[in-house]
């Protein structure tokens, strides 16, 4: 098997993706099996990926196997170990669900294949103008090294049976927490959702939001971040469990809300509450809300490691993920509820109809009530924020 791979690598060299057409890619992808490394904690998402695999097998003869990760960084670690061992061909990770920090790390260390997105016919349908985060991932330009898959906007959930009127700002949230001790908490950073919640506190604290798009050093951060710690210090004793422990992840926080231990949760997918209610994993009285000042929006992507064994197959899958049919199915709250990255105006009328018929679900805010979209701060802010949080609340 390994010998075959080596021979293939010698006989079919793939020098970047410049000189070939997508038809060549399709031809070479035939018969390949793509190992798609993707977080596997959600049965709905896993089912959707399984559907993608059945379709790519039927349409392009490209098999798809989901390698279910607990954390995307596991796959980053694997690619790094392969590089450490000098394996530049025939790597075990073909396609990777990725964004933000993981993308920055892999791009900086030269662990990614590309640029490849211009090769994908469906990439032209992406709403790069209306959705700038499809090209800039946490302030880092994607430069064609990752292909957008879905949109994310931070939303909070509340149980309307216990909270009649959700807070519209962080100050109102603090006031509510002070009068309802033990009923609010957030996941412990560096969990993704927990860190994102902290970034909203940061947005309130820094007078000029544009500053967050620039890198920051420890001294400047110390001066600017004081209000962050003041806000957190105020609510901390009144958090769930008195703020001495925190849920480990956004998923753990959903469970606490489902168990009635807290009254709030939060997620990056605006339809997540609806989808969990439909799956019987949140009470039917749960609803979504956002802060008046807006919440952070970003995009999640797929990328191909530099040493992937089946790069052509991975590109075929990445292209299929952008197919209007696949994007519409993904946005269906009964399937997953993940918003599309496509520009609906660029689609054919027949394709546009696929999106227009989709129901929002019981707890999803309509797009016009999702509030302003805040861009992700430069990653240096997050690193200092996480470290500062650990120094204060996790000593």
């Amino acid at each position, binding site marked *: 098997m*390994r010998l075959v791979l080596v021979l293939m690598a010698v006989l079919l060299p793939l020098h970047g993706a410049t000189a070939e057409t997508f038809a060549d890619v399709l031809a070479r992808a035939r018969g390949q099996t793509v*190992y798609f*490394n993707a977080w*596997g*904690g*959600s*049965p709905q998402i*896993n089912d959707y990926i399984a559907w993608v695999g059945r379709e790519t097998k039927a349409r392009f003869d490209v098999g798809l*196997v989901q*390698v*279910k*990760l*607990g*954390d*995307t*960084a*596991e796959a980053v*670690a*694997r690619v*790094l*170990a*392969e*590089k*450490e*061992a*000098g394996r530049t061909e025939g790597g*075990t990770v073909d396609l990777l669900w990725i964004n*933000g*920090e*993981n993308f*920055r*790390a892999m791009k900086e*260390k030269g662990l990614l294949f590309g640029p490849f997105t211009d090769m994908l016919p469906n990439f032209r349908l992406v709403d790069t103008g209306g959705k700038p985060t499809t090209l800039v991932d946490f302030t880092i330009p994607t430069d064609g090294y990752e292909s957008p898959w879905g949109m994310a906007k931070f939303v909070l959930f509340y149980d309307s049976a216990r909270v009649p009127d959700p807070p519209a700002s962080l100050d109102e949230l603090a006031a509510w927490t002070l009068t309802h001790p*033990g009923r609010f908490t957030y996941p*412990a950073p560096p969990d993704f959702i927990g860190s994102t919640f902290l970034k909203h506190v940061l947005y309130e604290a820094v007078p000029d939001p544009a500053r967050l798009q620039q890198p920051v050093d420890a001294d400047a951060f110390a001066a600017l971040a004081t209000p962050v710690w003041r806000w957190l210090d105020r609510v901390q004793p009144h958090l769930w*469990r*008195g703020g*001495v*422990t*925190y*849920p*480990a*992840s956004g*998923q*753990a926080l959903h*469970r*606490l809300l*489902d*168990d*009635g*231990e807290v009254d709030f949760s939060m997620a990056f997918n605006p339809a997540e509450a609806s989808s*969990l209610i439909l*799956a*019987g*994993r949140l009470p039917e009285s749960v609803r979504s809300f956002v802060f008046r000042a807006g919440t952070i929006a970003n995009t999640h992507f797929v990328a191909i490691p530099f040493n992937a064994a089946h790069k052509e197959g991975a590109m075929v899958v990445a292209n299929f993920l952008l197919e209007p049919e696949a994007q519409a199915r993904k946005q269906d709250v009964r399937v997953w509820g993940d918003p599309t990255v496509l520009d609906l105006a660029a689609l054919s009328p027949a394709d546009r109809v696929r999106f227009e018929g989709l129901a929002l679900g019981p707890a999803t805010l309509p797009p016009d009530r999702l509030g302003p979209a805040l861009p992700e701060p430069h990653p240096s802010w997050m*690193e200092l924020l996480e470290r500062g949080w*650990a*120094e204060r609340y*996790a*000593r």
Partner: protein
Amino acid sequence: MPVASARSPFLRLAPPLTIALFLGPVAAGLAGTILPAFGWLPALDVRQLSLEPWRQLLAAPGVGRGVVLTLASGLGATVLALASAVLIVAASHERRGTRPLRLTLPFLLAVPHLASAIGTAFLVAPSGFAARLVSPWLTGWQRPPDLLTLNDPFGLALTFGLALRECPFLVLALIAAESQIASGGRLAVARTFGYGAAEAWLKLVLPQLYGQVRLPLYAVLAFALSVVDMAVVLGPTAPPVLAVQLLRWFNDPDLALRLVAAAGAVLQLGLILLAIGTWRAVETVLARLCRSWLLAGPSPSFERALRLLGRLAFTGVLGTSILGLGALLLWSVAGSWRFPAALPSQLQLASWAAVAQDLSWPAATTLLLAALSSLAALGLVLACLEHEARTGPKPRARVLALAYAPLLIPQVSFLFGLQVLFVRLGLDATFPGLLWSHLVFVLPYVLLMLHDPYLALDPRFLATGTVLGGAPARVFWRIKLPLLRRPILVAAAVGFSVSVAQYLPTVFVGGGRWPTLTTETLTLALGSDRRLAAAAALLLALLPLAALAAALAVRSPRLRHGR
């Protein structure tokens, strides 16, 4: 008898082969961890030997507390597990002997750590099964109380969860060791001097057994100090114990943190050595202090206290484990089940259907890996022990003790290095590679379970066999194997369950291509669907339970003296 061994090249090769199979990966893995800890990781273009990773490690927030939590929960859990195991075995001598223990505790032993932790969490959480059983009629709780019963910052939930899981292992080790010495006669003599059964066992038998269970005990200690999957489910979160923090760093998108993680992994190894050293020192001091107490004569009130505590410990361990498994079972068939309902309001089989569909392939992989690795381990161990038995423990044979290294070295300390080695050999993400990595962890347990029973086998049987004209090989096949049938099968079953429970090696070496029940269950446990996690955890527990039940169903020939 040494002459016989010279005629059997396979046996002579067995110990070096076994050591090479182990020490190779462990040494390469350790090197691959220690070098980055001192600033050497060419993949990241770091080629400057320095103490910088250590400086960053010591400056990282929460590390000091993580170390304290690690030591406290690891030592605490080991003390608790040993104390309850000793009490349980002591009290079991009062009437029915160890029979109820032999029937029940091994089954708890077979339940993988992860399944046990998930069950315990479902039980003790403020919204868990225990609170639901008494709410609201007794407690008045309409909502889950805001109590720190899980993930507490002192690591108490983790300590108790670990102790609960390790106690059965130590009970089994004590019973196995006792079956090798003639404790019956000794106990009978003590009783004529007015000792109660439990006190007699504690004062006369335990001091003899302790040396034999020392290694399992240290393995428990090392495990408790470096456990990851249980600590993720039960342990403190901010900061977590050191091992969990290390895994976070190894997995951090900031690749430079890998150097800090490597330094932390070396620190983790140091903590284990320190803890074992401390334990050893305390052993010696305690042995001195206890001498006069051991000779002070019988005390009826002490006997009563022992029996009571022993029964309490037995009921506690058994009851908590069964309730935890019960909570898993209920969640796996639950539809809607909201606090404070004691039972689900609807039952459904959807979770099991989903698990049957998604996990049949991982289950097959798990089964194959566990069966092959425990068989391979059994073959190697028997060959090594037979060699040692024929030649006597020469210095070279003592090298076999090195095979225990994987038990005492934290997995996280060498898995990154091991992963790099396997990639170099082209073995990563292949089934043989994964099998080898499992064997590294399975073999020490098989050796641990078999070593003493094998070498303590009454030499008169063998002498008789030889006198009757049996060649050593014939004695081995016709006398030793049948006599040791039960310990051999139990050792294989323990090896089987060790393989089933492996998480980190499967993730690091398997390259995600060979998902097993353990990796899939942890992914589900971190997800939001408790019903699926419960069904997966039960399925995970089922395989080793079946293996152990099969092993225990076989009876030993009744040739031994004593009971």
